[in-house]
């Protein structure tokens, strides 16, 4: 398609809207992946696996041409299921997104229709933000699609993890993995297993976007980064996600994440 709406470059991220996970284990593990890296990731992951959560989130989007803030309600179960509903602004209130496994549906209250996002639009922006639809889906597949090694270990100066003992994981796509990124590098603090930043590179090794985490604090009884910022590297634009409320163990079942529930207004 020749036409390209001005959307931020698409890609994947471990989107916190669906549970504050760093990485999620699932599917076959390649021999290329460092077993130690896997063990750490698995340990982090175990904290959240199978958990349900609910969050009240604000998403502030700044672009060259406009800025706005969305207030969102989100529910998730593990990494497979999530449901997000827009509370404000009024023009989009009630708009909702359902993610089940690899598929994403949008509910549009203005026309009272549910639309399944087609594969060609998965790299499109989610609600005008610097997240893509693909970000919602791909989170649960990182280990299936990437070989992961520990590329740095020790005390790092500067940045969000200043003076902290950290691991740096480098993920390179497996030969036939259907992914967009050429490389993902992510830093995690050793002490509390909290992510500090993740950088996304294209196939030519150019930095495409950076995600940074901050405001670590207890929410819903767990330590989480309260704020996450996504910045495409070719502009001054950004999307900042901030958690206002976060609760775990709601006992949500898979039935909650249904198309019927997607349409239901609160």
């Amino acid at each position, binding site marked *: *398609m*020749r*036409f*390209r*709406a*001005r*959307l931020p470059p698409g890609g994947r991220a471990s989107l916190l809207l669906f549970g504050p996970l760093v990485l999620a284990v699932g599917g076959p593990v390649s021999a290329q992946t460092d077993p130690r890296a896997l063990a750490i990731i698995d340990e982090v992951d175990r904290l959240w696996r199978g958990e349900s959560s609910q969050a009240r989130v604000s998403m502030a*989007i700044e*672009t*060259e*041409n*406009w*800025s*706005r803030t969305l207030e969102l309600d989100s529910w998730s179960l593990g990494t497979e299921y999530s449901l997000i509903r827009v509370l404000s*602004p009024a*023009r*989009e209130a009630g*708009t909702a997104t359902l993610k089940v496994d690899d598929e994403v549906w*949008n509910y*549009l209250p*203005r*026309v009272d*229709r549910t*639309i*399944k*996002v*087609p594969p*060609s*639009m998965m790299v*499109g*922006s989610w*609600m*005008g933000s610097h997240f893509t639809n693909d970000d919602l889906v791909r989170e649960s597949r990182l280990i299936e699609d990437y070989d992961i090694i520990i590329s740095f270990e020790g005390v790092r100066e500067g940045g969000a993890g200043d003076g902290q003992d950290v691991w740096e994981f480098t993920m390179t796509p497996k030969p036939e993995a259907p992914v967009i990124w050429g490389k993902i590098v992510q830093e995690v603090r050793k002490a509390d297993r909290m992510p500090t930043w993740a950088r996304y590179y294209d196939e030519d090794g150019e930095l495409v976007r950076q995600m940074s985490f901050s405001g670590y604090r207890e929410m819903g009884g767990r330590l989480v980064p309260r704020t996450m910022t996504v910045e495409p590297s070719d502009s001054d634009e950004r999307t900042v996600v901030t958690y206002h409320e976060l609760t775990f163990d709601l006992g949500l079942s898979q039935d909650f994440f249904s198309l019927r529930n997607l349409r239901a207004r609160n």
Partner: protein
Amino acid sequence: MTQAWGRLWWRIAWRNLWRNKRRTLLTASALSFGFVASVLMIGLSDGVVEQMIQNGTELVTGQIQIHDQEFLPERGIHDTLGGSDGIDLAGLLAALDEVPLVSGAAPRVYGGGLVSSGDETVGAILMGIDPLREPNVSAFAENLVSGAMPGPGQILVGDQLADDVEVDVGDEVVLVAPAADGSLGNDLFVVSGIFSLDTGLMDGAYALLGLEDLQFLMALPQSRIHEVAMKVDRTRDSNAVAEEVGNAVQSMAPGLLVQPWSEFLPQLYFFTSLASASNLVIAGMIFGMAVFGVANTMLIATYERRREFAVVRALGTARRSVGLTVVCEGILLGAVSLAAGVMIALPLMAWIHAHPIDLSRWVGSYSMMGSSVRPLVTVEYSWDGPIFSGLALVVTGLASALYPAWKAVRVPPADALSSR
């Protein structure tokens, strides 16, 4: 005196030429045939090129477009004419209508979005159009499979797109498009019609709706459009008209970029330039082959006249003059062939031009460089083809006479007379 002398040698050359009528006629026929082939081939090639340009520009793009200078190649939603201030659309269109040779000007808004019906959703290029002006520029209105151009609240889709989302005229579709204010525009539209331009790109991806409907969906004010496409009657005027359009509109908003098709369809332009260049190469080859055939004939003709050359040389004629007769003979042969060729080529061209040969019955239509090509064999008149071929023909006659002339000059009078 020199004039009389010159006329004399031409006359001798002319008589020599007709000494062996059959041979001369055969040689001249070969040259005429080469000329006709060359003219016809260039004409046909020009016809194909002209048709490609027309097909490439008349479907959607038009021959001239105005954009904001930032619009291409990213086609950003915010890069409207005049930037975020927009432009006086009515004034702009009025000014364009005033430009002579512009036979249509259509404003457009573009957006990327989803077209959805029931469980089917596909990505589409949304094009906001003025349903009254659009038919003057693009071919959508002429290629409706069913229904009509879109009115308010209506949408026109390509036949492949209609198949993909399983809709027909009168059905409802949902459009979802990222809007200029960052929101997600969405609304219901009724399918007013289905078009088929016979190119997968358009038929599978384009959806047309009213300019104001799309502006509203994408939260753009009515003064903001992405493009004005214009039609020019003869594609070859595009560059000149684009310049006039530029002069007419430049003061209306900053950053306006007016381009003829050769700039916004560079692949098509490259291909057509390549076709024109290859014409010359092929014509060159035709005459290159003719040179050797004609040279051979003339060489034999000069050998037959060895004794004559020896006699005139012995009587005191300068070498130069002997050579000149042969060269004159070659030029005259070329001129005769040219006259015959013109008499054959012109009626033939006129006939094919009036009765294009439609090959679509055998090969169907195909698409090339994004433009649908109907295999219609036609010729395009231009002076370039005949003039180039004619020159090439006379040069061929001249060139093929040079070697025989040189041989004639070198005939030693005594030897030629004494032996045989």
